[in-house]
């Protein structure tokens, strides 16, 4: 019997796609939230950060409430063949919702500490706002944005609660590393559980090492 690597592939796929989604959404909301009037910003901020403080199972519950196949939106989406319940891309939705606040908050912190005179001087030199955003603001906020991306990736990779609520555990279809660990442990396959735990540890270690390396290189570049 060949070993089932599906959970690894599925987890990486879900984490990678949600990481990209959350990267753009987080930056988008962080950038626009920083310019909103204080009251609106406060309300939006609470709403966007909620998934971080709610138990993931509660997030999963809400997702089921919204996207369940018997709910209006779920029924509507089903007409286009889109079903978030019990599908692997439902896992992307769950992981994105839970990981979003990490990206949003770190990116917002980075944008808020950005020296606005840099953007102003770019404008008075006639540089376009798009250029200023991608070539001046983003590089200046690189540290925070990188940190947010890594946190979001790690969170998406390790997502369990909302994922298990929304997409459950079906070997070869919706299984991820974290749901597999639970399932194997529950069925007394301690060796199998340990194997996936080690895989998870290895991925997380590689991610963190990469971040440290990037940061070190950046510091070196600034000093040189």
């Amino acid at each position, binding site marked *: 019997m060949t070993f089932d690597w599906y959970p690894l592939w599925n987890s990486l796929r879900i984490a990678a796609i949600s990481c990209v989604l959350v990267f753009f959404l987080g930056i988008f909301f962080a950038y626009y939230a920083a310019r909103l009037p204080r009251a609106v910003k406060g309300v939006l901020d609470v709403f966007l950060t909620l998934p971080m403080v709610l138990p993931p199972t509660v997030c999963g519950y809400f997702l089921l409430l919204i996207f369940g196949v018997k709910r209006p939106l779920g029924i509507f989406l089903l007409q286009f063949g889109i079903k978030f319940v019990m599908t692997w891309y439902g896992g992307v939705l769950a992981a994105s919702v839970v990981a979003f606040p990490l990206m949003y908050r770190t990116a917002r912190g980075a944008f808020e500490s950005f*020296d606005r*005179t*840099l953007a*102003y001087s*770019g404008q008075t030199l006639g540089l376009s706002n798009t250029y200023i955003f991608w070539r001046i603001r983003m590089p*200046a906020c690189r540290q925070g944005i990188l940190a947010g991306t890594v946190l979001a990736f790690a969170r998406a990779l390790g997502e369990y609660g909302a994922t298990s609520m929304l997409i459950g555990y079906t070997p070869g279809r919706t299984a991820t590393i974290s749901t597999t660990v639970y399932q194997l442990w529950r069925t007394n396959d301690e060796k199998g559980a340990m194997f996936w735990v080690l895989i998870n540890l290895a991925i997380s270690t590689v991610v963190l090492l990469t971040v440290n390396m990037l940061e070190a290189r950046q510091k070196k570049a600034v000093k040189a």
Partner: protein
Amino acid sequence: MSLIVDIHRALGAFTLDVSFKAENGVTCLLGASGCGKSFTLKCIAGIEKPDSGHIELDGVVLYDSEKHINLPPQKRQVGYLFQNYALFPNMTVRQNILCGLHREKNRAEKERKLGEMMKLMQLEGLENHRPAQLSGGQQQRVALARIMVNEPRMLMLDEPFSALDAHLRDSLKIELRDMLHRFGHEVLMVTHSREEAYNMSSRIAVMDRGKLLTIKDTKDLFADPGSVPAAVLTGCKNIATARKSGDHEVEVPDWGIRFQTSQKVREGLTAIGIRAHYFNTQTQQNRFPVVYVEEMEEPFEVILQFRYAGQRPDCPPVWWRLSKEKRPREFPEMLGIAPANILLLYE
């Protein structure tokens, strides 16, 4: 070549009402911190928006609330040197200056202009340095180079020396002054330092809590500030409330004396100012008995504080500043002041 500014905006504690016209040359906006100087610059640059008003540069309307014109900063072609120079930290000196050359599409021409400016600003050899590796003076030159290659139609400087060490400041002042006079367009500079204003500008606009009080040629302003805030900003240490008591005479109740003035006193006089340097033991006019209070030594000068014999006890002592060599051995019993040195300050 001219700049017309007439802007209004509610700004928290006060309202900004600034209206002036400036032509070629260096004009300083002089005022205490938080009086709205920098905000005025930002409105001209298009970074901030006034509530209402009109801004026009060389006949081009940059902002007009009635005509609903508000050009974005990108279209105003106004050079702005920020207090911290605002160099892009992720770019090298070369890349920073190239940002100012983004309109030049011809590659060869771009390189030529870059090289020319690097040479002019004495930045050769620093092409690949990052801003963090430069000294304050070098950073200022890079920022200016980046603005100059962009060929702005006017230049604005916001406290250009505040980020520099004191010893660097003086040598850079001379460099910058010469450069600004060569620039050939309108230059607006914001400062709270009267020395900088005096060194750099041909004209000074005095601002106080959002209002532009006077705009005068630099030397005229120091000779005759005309109002209490302008007198304070130009460094006048002795200011006392006064009232007109004759065509060439003012009464200062706090000091219990009357001064003869050489200028004719107009109605509406509220105070007089006397610069600390102008008291004299020899002068026979406006000569009154004085009492020594205390002194403070400076590197090359000394400040002697005294009171007039009839001075009210609750009003502060008067400052007399003179160079150390000229200091009398005994504190004089009488001090005089030339009538021309009584500054008449109006509402």
